[in-house]
């Protein structure tokens, strides 16, 4: 099994962090993994994206033109990636910022109002964990506990209150999918 996922949004939304946490979680679960960030003459507020490949076998190409899954955080990213996702693929949309519907009818869509949920939680910085929670819950490609372990490993030494907030974000994101909210 090899699954390629694109995470895309604008700088400051925690897009690269989201992919990084997922990649570390998958590695600790014994998977092969590649994390390829976009880089360049980029600025805060500009576009940010990364591709994470998770597999049971050696990963050949870290580059893909047809991801299985996409986590889309803003409208420009939807325009860029909608055409690339594999037929039957899953797309997790940040519906707080993306009000339009998909053009394609052959994708499974999960809409998560991540910015609104984050506001209620009291921290904008949890939007990436909310999206990641929804992603994991929908695709079953990892578990919330694995993601939490990945996050803990990466941000070693963060305050417990911050970690609790992130966990809450993950759970709410996951809950959104379980409830079948659209």
């Amino acid at each position, binding site marked *: 099994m090899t699954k390629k996922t694109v995470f895309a949004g604008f700088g400051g939304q925690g897009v690269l962090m989201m992919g990084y946490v997922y*990649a570390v979680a998958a590695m600790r679960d014994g998977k092969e993994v590649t994390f390829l960030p976009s880089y360049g*003459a980029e600025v805060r507020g500009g576009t940010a994206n990364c591709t994470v490949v998770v597999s049971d076998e050696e990963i050949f*190409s870290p*580059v893909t*033109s*047809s991801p299985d899954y996409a986590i889309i955080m803003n409208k420009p990213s939807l325009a860029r990636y909608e055409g690339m996702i594999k037929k039957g693929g899953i797309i997790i949309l940040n519906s707080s910022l993306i009000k339009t519907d998909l053009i394609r009818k052959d994708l499974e869509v999960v809409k998560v109002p991540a910015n609104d949920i984050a506001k209620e939680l009291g921290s904008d910085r949890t939007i990436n964990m909310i999206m990641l929670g929804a992603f994991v819950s929908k695709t079953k490609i990892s578990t919330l506990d694995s993601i939490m372990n990945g996050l803990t490993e990466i941000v070693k030494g963060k305050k417990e209150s911050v970690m609790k907030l992130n966990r809450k974000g993950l759970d709410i994101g996951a809950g959104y999918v379980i409830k079948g909210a659209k």
Partner: protein
Amino acid sequence: MTEKLLMRGSHVIGETAALSGCRFYAGYPITPQNELTEYMAGAMDKLDNGTFIQAESEIAAINMVIGASMAGARAMTSSSSPGISLKQEGISYLAAFELPAVIINTMRGGPGLGNIAPAQGDYFQATRGGGHGDYRTIVLAPASGQELAGLTRAAFDYADKYRIPVMLLGDGMMGQMMEPVELPDPLDLDTLPPRPWKLDGAKGRPSQFIRSLFLDTTVEEDHNWKLNRKHQNITRDISKAELFETKDAKMVIIAYGTAARIAKGAIKKVREMGLKVGLIRPITLWPFPSQELIEISRHLRDFLVFEMSTGQMVEDVRLALEGRGNIHFYGRPGGIISTPDEISKVIISLYHRQHLEED
């Protein structure tokens, strides 16, 4: 061996260099390899006897490496394409002085200032010496995070063993990508062979010097032949390539570094369609693994060279095969990263044109 870590390519090079006894780093910032310079600042600071210098220029940095190596340190510098051009005079001197040093080139689009995207346009410069004079540098081409660690360690060892500058030739993607890596054990500097040639003060021994000026032409000729014998030994000893799915192949792709990763993805796709295609991935670019190519040419005719340039390694393939086989080329220069889909289309079209689907 330690536990697996998910590490950025640049950081793998930096950490492995420190674990491999690198005690001197000088560099000047340039994208897409600033993460390495930044990492070395921390890595050298953590050591009791490490030195990090952000030099005033690339030229200063390579000359500092010459000095550190002369004094006996395992020394390294890094840059990206335009900065590597600036270092070439110093690399020529390192070769003439027969000093070990490790140079990292994280290639980007060129010529000129180019751009900051991954490219492979510096192949000629790297494998032909790069600077003036009759010399070569060992050139290693990693294609994964784990190999970055292995080849960084090897670069320091080869540099010492042969007293030669060694270049690790990666690109922006190799530098930025994160993969799980097991780092090598730290090297005990006391286990390294002595460096009787180093200049560390003449107390208790006759004075000695290291130079590259030989006005007597016969002395310079002898020096050139001495370097040449060393190059021959290196060619005999360390040429290396990875062979992938070549056993039943009717056609092989030849690609290195990032291009090889993309080619492997394409091969996986076309194999699922029933095409018998393999890969030869040179790990040493100089010396070029010619023997491996000749071996494969005994049972197939068609070679497709894929590079992120307009075609440079393809010339070494022609030199290696000397007319054995049909050599085809596909390239994307300027910082374009092909996808496996794109390369699989090229493979399928070529497979048809060469009538490989028959028998």
